[in-house]
């Protein structure tokens, strides 16, 4: 009797989760598909604008961000944080125009592309590059925009950001990711597979963006109050931290949710055991954040868009393994992460020895019993992402009031800053730099 009732509750949870997820997908219209969401192409019309971003402590800030003009409709999106992820192809010339619709108080704006050989033009040459003049300050007949052209010669992960008053403008949100895909499959590679670089050892199954940044709310308040002159960066003290422009738990929500209109990108990696995940890791702000990966070691195969090679064609033979990597301001890194359950010492599927193996299962663990007796339910507190079972894809009885948020029995691994105060949003725990990788049972579909 009891068992049947629990089954029914379990099924109900399944159904509701499916309905809820379906609704979210309908609203957002996009799934992750194991690829990074962004704008692919070779010509991009960016527009710098003022807008508002929302933090997980229930606050909101004035921000300056890049919007993008749709080539078909001609409409320009709202500013977004971070800027649109620009996905381009090696050896294909890229043109980016920048129109400055920021308030006049923001001044000129520009974009620098570290790692690219850029030709820039506009009416005004600033200290770092050519700048776009606020349209607010120009007659309609005068074009104040700037144009940047370059031909990316090396695939990899890069950052772009404001090159004008960058201490203020990057803080305000003018930063984004640039991804250069290889032009061809590397020699010896499989055309059906994905590669980050021109070498077979950069193969991956799914990719995710980790653009890490921070904000000091006082600066945004001063901008809002037209007191830019009072901003003092020597007392910079951030209290809000972002992955792809969102704080935890907003980081987990779908891409393009309606309630975060200027923060379209989530960070919700999922995979099946044995797959290779490429993490495109970007230090998007001004501080160093030691990001720690639960679950397994990663391998750092590239830094700043260059494979860690001892010589050309050697592949990432200088790659290094660890569980924590510092996000260095302005630096990018490409990490390969996988998880197999190897040498755990018990069967993660709870098989008996004569059950068949799951895909990519670590065979020596097969059929090994679970090693301990778990405490009875009232002796422990179940976390929101505990399925009720220690097994991958498992399920178990959940206490009353438990949300059942892990209906597929996935294995959740926190990927987070180990400067743990950054796991808050302006005094509110939890928030900030927390994300979760979910390793799903091989039978659970991942779009």
């Amino acid at each position, binding site marked *: 009797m009891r068992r049947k009732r629990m089954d029914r509750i379990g099924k109900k949870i399944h159904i509701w989760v499916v309905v809820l997820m379906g609704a979210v997908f309908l609203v957002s219209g996009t799934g992750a598909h194991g690829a990074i969401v962004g704008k692919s192409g070779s010509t991009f019309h960016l527009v710098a604008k003022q807008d508002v971003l929302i933090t997980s402590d229930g606050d909101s800030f004035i921000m300056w961000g890049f919007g993008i003009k749709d080539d078909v409709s001609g409409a320009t999106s709202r500013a977004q944080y971070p800027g649109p992820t620009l996905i381009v192809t090696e050896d294909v010339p890229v043109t980016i125009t920048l129109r400055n619709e920021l308030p006049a108080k923001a001044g000129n704006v520009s974009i620098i592309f570290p790692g690219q050989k850029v030709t820039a033009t506009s009416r005004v040459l600033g200290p770092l590059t050519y700048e776009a003049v606020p349209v607010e300050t120009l007659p309609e007949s005068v074009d104040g925009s700037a144009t940047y052209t370059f031909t990316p010669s090396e695939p990899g992960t890069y950052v772009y950001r404001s090159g004008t008053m960058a201490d203020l403008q990057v803080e305000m949100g003018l930063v984004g990711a640039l991804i250069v895909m290889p032009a061809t499959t590397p020699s010896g590679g499989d055309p059906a597979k994905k590669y980050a670089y021109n070498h077979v*050892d950069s193969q991956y199954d799914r990719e995710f963006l980790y653009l890490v940044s921070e904000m000091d709310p006082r600066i945004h308040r001063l901008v809002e109050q037209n007191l830019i002159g009072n901003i003092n960066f020597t007392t910079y003290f951030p209290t809000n931290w972002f992955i792809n422009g969102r704080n935890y738990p907003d980081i987990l929500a779908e891409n393009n949710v309606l309630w975060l209109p200027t923060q379209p990108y989530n960070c919700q990696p999922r995979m099946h055991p044995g797959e290779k995940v490429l993490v495109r890791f970007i230090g998007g702000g001004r501080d160093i954040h030691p990001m720690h990966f639960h*679950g*397994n*070691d990663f391998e750092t195969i590239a830094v700043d868009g260059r494979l860690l090679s*001892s010589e050309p064609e050697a592949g990432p*033979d*200088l*790659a*290094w*393994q*660890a*569980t*924590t990597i*510092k996000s260095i301001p302005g630096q990018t890194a490409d990490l390969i992460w996988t998880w*197999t*359950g*190897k*040498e*755990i*010492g*018990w069967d993660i599927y*709870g*098989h*008996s020895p004569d059950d068949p193996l799951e895909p990519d299962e670590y065979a020596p663990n097969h059929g090994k*019993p*679970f*090693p*301990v*007796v*778990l*405490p*009875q*339910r*009232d*002796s*422990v*507190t*179940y*976390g929101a992402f*505990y399925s*009720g*079972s220690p*097994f991958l894809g498992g*399920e*178990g009885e959940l206490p009353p009031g438990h949300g059942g948020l*892990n209906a597929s029995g996935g*294995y*959740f*691994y*926190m990927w987070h800053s*180990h*400067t*743990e*105060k950054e*796991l*808050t949003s302006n*005094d509110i*725990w*939890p928030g900030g730099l927390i994300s*979760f990788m979910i390793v799903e049972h091989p039978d659970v579909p991942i779009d």
Partner: protein
Amino acid sequence: MMKRRIRYASVTAALILFSFLWAVTASADVQIQCPGDKDGDGISEDPNIVCRSITAGDGFTKMADGLDLYIFSFGDGEGVPPDRIIADLTLKAQLPAPTIILKQGQELYLTMTNVGMVVRPDLFDTHSVHWHGFPNAAPIFDGLPEPSPTANMGNSFTYYYNAAVPGTYFYHCHVEAAEHMQMGMIGNLWVTPIQDGTSIEGFTKFAYNDEDGSTGYDVAYPLLLTGFDSFFHIASDTVQALPFAAMFDEYPMINGRGYPDTINPNNIVNKNGFAAQKICSLITATAGQRILLRVSNISTTHQYTFATTLGVPMKVVGRGAALLRGPDGKDTSMDVNVLNVGGGQAYDVILDTSGVAPGTYFLYTTDLANLSNGEQERGGIMTEIVINPLNDPV
């Protein structure tokens, strides 16, 4: 009795059967699971199985300038029978937590009992153990409170780890991590390699299975770097709102002590008369020996950078519990004068004292502001390295 429903009936049967293979000694909800322990002393008769009993709760520490600070941390339940753990070990948290050392291939049954926090009866926090850096971890033993069960006050949870990969790790509580780690729930943990005991290049102890002796050492010391924000600890002690946004460590420490307590060979006794800070970080070696430093940083606010005055470079041979070798075995070790360690990072550093004149040297943070105990100067992250002459009878 287990009430949970598990999908696979055969596994349930196996679990129930397995649970009777060793003595489960229980008192209320404190249960210590130790397979192969037939007489209930908490020690397995199987040499490959290591059983440890720790507690999680609160206590007090004394900073090097004399300030008493309230902490949460782990205590040592070794040899304490289950029915005495809560009675004997409340307010007995240690800083750092008891050190855990394993040999590669051993299995660890680590029972953590949540003994409650008597200074804060208003709190009902659970606690957990996160083995930081454990490769191919399973959420059930990862100590993250979100995807696992964590022990309520008065209850225990046994974590299982197959120590397959040698290296320098550490452990900490992951429940409300910004708070619990700032409060002190951190400890040293390492796994020695299977290569230990073989003789390579004159060494019999190694940081990793290097096969060439490059990580060989004579003496090893853990350097667990962290810091306390005294305002946060006092706010916790006095039941005030916790200042997360303002958190900023001003008591930097090695193994839970600021200099000169780092070189004090005695236990540091807290205001209740309990020796909560047991680890002296004085590094001693004989001239010509190689010293292995197992360095980690678990500060919730700071990165720390350090150097030595030995005059020889530090050779970094491991990072994140992995030998510094490329995927095809290329040597990627580094000779450095200073090493920056971010929160959550661990490094293995070899100091070769060949050619170093006997004497006393310093290991100190080059982030010079961290050479302090609160407002007291010449403290914080600093310790001494004493190189004894080869034939010194001492």
